[in-house]
């Protein structure tokens, strides 16, 4: 019970802390918010002529930020190895 009360108190505290920042965040879908005018126009306007891929998300995913995607695939690989390591038991039934 005490754990629940403490969790609620922490959650309320965290909520209010996050709400403090709400004031200075841009409005939803504002075309003039910094996220939409600083780097992303470069992707939208240049990706077709620089990479030849009409799907901008693919172009950014696989080329501009392809290095992230490589590690993302490595994350999947890590998870797969981890699951095999944790669960797979060898054939003779011995606990491994």
């Amino acid at each position, binding site marked *: 019970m005490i754990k629940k009360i403490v969790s609620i108190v922490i959650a309320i505290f965290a909520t209010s802390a996050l709400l403090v920042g709400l004031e200075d965040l841009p409005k939803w879908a504002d075309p003039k918010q910094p996220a939409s005018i600083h780097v992303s126009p470069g992707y939208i306007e240049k990706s077709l002529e620089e990479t030849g891929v009409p799907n901008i998300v693919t172009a950014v995913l696989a080329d501009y930020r392809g290095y992230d995607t*490589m590690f993302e695939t490595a994350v999947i690989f890590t998870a797969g190895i981890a699951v095999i390591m944790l669960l797979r038991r060898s054939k003779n039934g011995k606990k491994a």
Partner: protein
Amino acid sequence: MVKRHEDVIIQTVCRCLIPYMQIYSLYVLVHGHGSPGGGFQGGCIFAASFVLLAIVYDLREAKRRFSEKTNGVFCALGVFIYTAIGWLCLLLGGNFLDYGKLSKIFPTDPVMARYYGMAGIETGVQITVMAIMVSIFLNLATKGKHEEVLEE
């Protein structure tokens, strides 16, 4: 979950469905350049076909077609393809993952070399995602025992 339940209707439907799922996953992969899609989505659909096979038939049938060793090799192969393309660019004199340099060995201009480089890495992603998804499913569903579950 991965034990055999004989049901003619379900088995027949799945036998028809699975090849189309696999072809559809390849469609999602190659159309990732022009529409929503790509390696992850395609890989998941491909893995779903194996999961369906394991559920509808049984684990042994699925493993007969896609053995554990092949699966392990495929896990590493896909992400190896991705990294190897990066290394290839590096060896051709560019920075790591600079697909434009692939035009030195493929008969295209640098822009289209980027296009095909991306196709190559998406293929790698598809292979890894497919193999890992199958592997995670089989291990979670059988608690890591694989065939021994069928004998219980």
